[in-house]
């Protein structure tokens, strides 16, 4: 507690070039964002309808990031470890379930009972991803629980490659598309705004899952135990909580959400799934989790949505106004720039607390 005034004093007394450069950088970035946005908006290059469509598409994409991001944040909250193989947990559900989706399509079930079929697909993918996540925990991470923190991190990267190439071994490396669902093909006309139906469906499905998670964590005994373990493992044991069991539940829940996200993503994006599909969404969801404050559940949800929207709107809004060509191909740049910026300026994330001594 006594350290607060000390830290504050240092800020005024010691002039540091690092702080100066960081602040200058912060100023330049804010200026660029404002200038770019103002330019774009004043030039009237895009209509209001176009902005709304971009925003809604961003929300849909962002809700998928959010579902994956929750897996990172839940595990970090309990183990203070980044499960870098989580993108592959997502992939395993999405890739395995594409075959079931095609079977449903061939039998006509997918289009005669789309809601039921999609729910079954989501549950199936959730179970596959959950199993992969549980195996990861049991075989790769649990034996290293007391090792220095770098060790499980490296193991996670190794496990990630292992999963990718195992799935390539099973299913080959070609892309497979999820079948199109007739019910999701149309679009909604709201005044002059045209929104593909699939986008609000994706958003709502994700919202339902996140609502379920929120209820689980806030209201159930298991959720309370999870929060207790994330705060103090030793005292949790004194309460009678089996730590290993809670850790397994945490991986299971994160895995299920990732598997569900895999199916939702497959229905949303036509480009198909393959063994490498988890990499980019994995890193973006990690970005979203960091953005919201790693370990913070609400933060992961909001971080995901925020990242999705910024990715959708940002290129046109900011880059275009700055006269940068081909701005739509710069989507990924935005995500990773955000990651770097957050790590420099606000490592605790938007909603996160400062790393405490316990966590650091």
């Amino acid at each position, binding site marked *: 507690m006594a350290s607060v005034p000390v830290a504050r004093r240092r800020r005024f007394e010691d002039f540091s070039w690092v702080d100066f450069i960081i602040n200058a950088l912060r100023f330049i970035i804010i200026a660029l964002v404002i200038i770019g946005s103002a330019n774009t908006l004043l030039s009237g290059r895009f209509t209001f309808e176009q902005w709304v469509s971009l925003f809604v598409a961003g929300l849909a994409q962002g809700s998928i990031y959010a579902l994956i991001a929750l897996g990172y944040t839940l595990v970090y909250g309990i183990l203070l470890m980044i499960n870098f193989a989580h993108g592959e947990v997502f992939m395993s559900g999405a890739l395995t379930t594409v075959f079931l989706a095609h079977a449903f399509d061939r039998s006509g079930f997918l289009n005669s009972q789309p809601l039921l079929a999609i729910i079954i697909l989501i549950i199936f993918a959730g179970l596959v991803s959950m199993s992969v996540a549980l195996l990861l925990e049991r075989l790769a991470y649990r034996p290293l629980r007391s090792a220095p923190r770098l060790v499980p991190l490296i193991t996670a990267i190794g496990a990630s490659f292992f999963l990718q190439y195992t799935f390539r071994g099973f299913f080959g490396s070609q892309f497979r598309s999820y079948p199109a669902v007739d019910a999701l093909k149309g679009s909604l006309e709201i005044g002059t705004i045209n929104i593909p139906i699939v986008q609000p469906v994706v958003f709502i499905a994700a919202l339902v899952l996140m609502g379920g998670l929120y209820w689980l964590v806030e209201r159930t*005994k298991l959720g309370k135990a999870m929060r207790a373990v994330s705060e103090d493992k*030793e005292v949790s044991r*004194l309460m009678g909580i089996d730590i290993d069991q809670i850790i397994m539940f945490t991986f299971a829940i994160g895995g299920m959400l990732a598997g569900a996200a895999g199916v939702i993503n497959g229905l949303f994006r036509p480009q198909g799934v393959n063994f490498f599909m988890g990499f980019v969404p994995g890193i973006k969801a990690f970005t979203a989790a960091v953005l919201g404050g790693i370990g913070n559940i609400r933060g992961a949800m909001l971080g995901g949505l925020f990242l999705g929207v910024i990715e959708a709107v940002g290129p046109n809004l900011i880059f275009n106004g700055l006269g940068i060509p081909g701005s739509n191909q710069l989507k990924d740049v935005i995500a990773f720039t955000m990651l770097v910026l957050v790590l420099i300026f606000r490592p605790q994330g938007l909603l996160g607390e400062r790393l405490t001594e316990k966590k650091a």
Partner: protein
Amino acid sequence: MALLEVENIHAYYGNIHALKGLTFHVEQGEIVTLIGSNGAGKTTTLRTITSLMHPRDGKITFEGNDITYTPANKLPSQGVAMVPEGRGIFSKLTVEENLELGAYYRNDPDGIRQDMSNSFDLFPRLKERRTQVAGTLSGGEQQMLAIARALMAKPRLLLLDEPSMGLAPVLVDTVFDTIERINTEGMTVLLVEQNALLALEIADRGYVLQTGEIVLADDAATLKKNPEVQKKYLGVD
């Protein structure tokens, strides 16, 4: 047969020999205190009893059952609960949630609800703050919560690690009154304290611990009169 029997336990932190063959016991219905200065091994003793660490040698029995290696998370259901050093409150959870976690092993919602309302009778301050996040409680309230939470497990033995730590004298008195009251209602208590004066005031018997060994064992009243104890732990010249 005593309720708790600790026989010749040796505990280590790496090469540090922290407990050097401790033997003591707690009888049903007693308040027994373990006093000693900083680093004497009081916390280590409680951590060993609750299996947060294991002794290298020796045996701990509770109600005749060997609990030396019973996992820590199985002890609440066996009847042992502890208020850890520094209280160990879950600061981000509400008062009510903290209490619910104290009853984690239990599956009787009605009984839990009843015991929660009993805790609120015992500690009215907590009732007013039931939906408040525990980190916002004062030190005294947190200590009350830690005790109430341990009682939610319906233990037959309550271990308390320095409940007076960091509290203003008035609050220390309140906490010790509470301990006495809980004991009168039938709870057996093993109380670890640096505040030897107060501890011996409410205890039936006491043990004096010094660098991992018990150097004195007697009735609390006798210990209080012991010149050695007076000089070293009671600040009497």
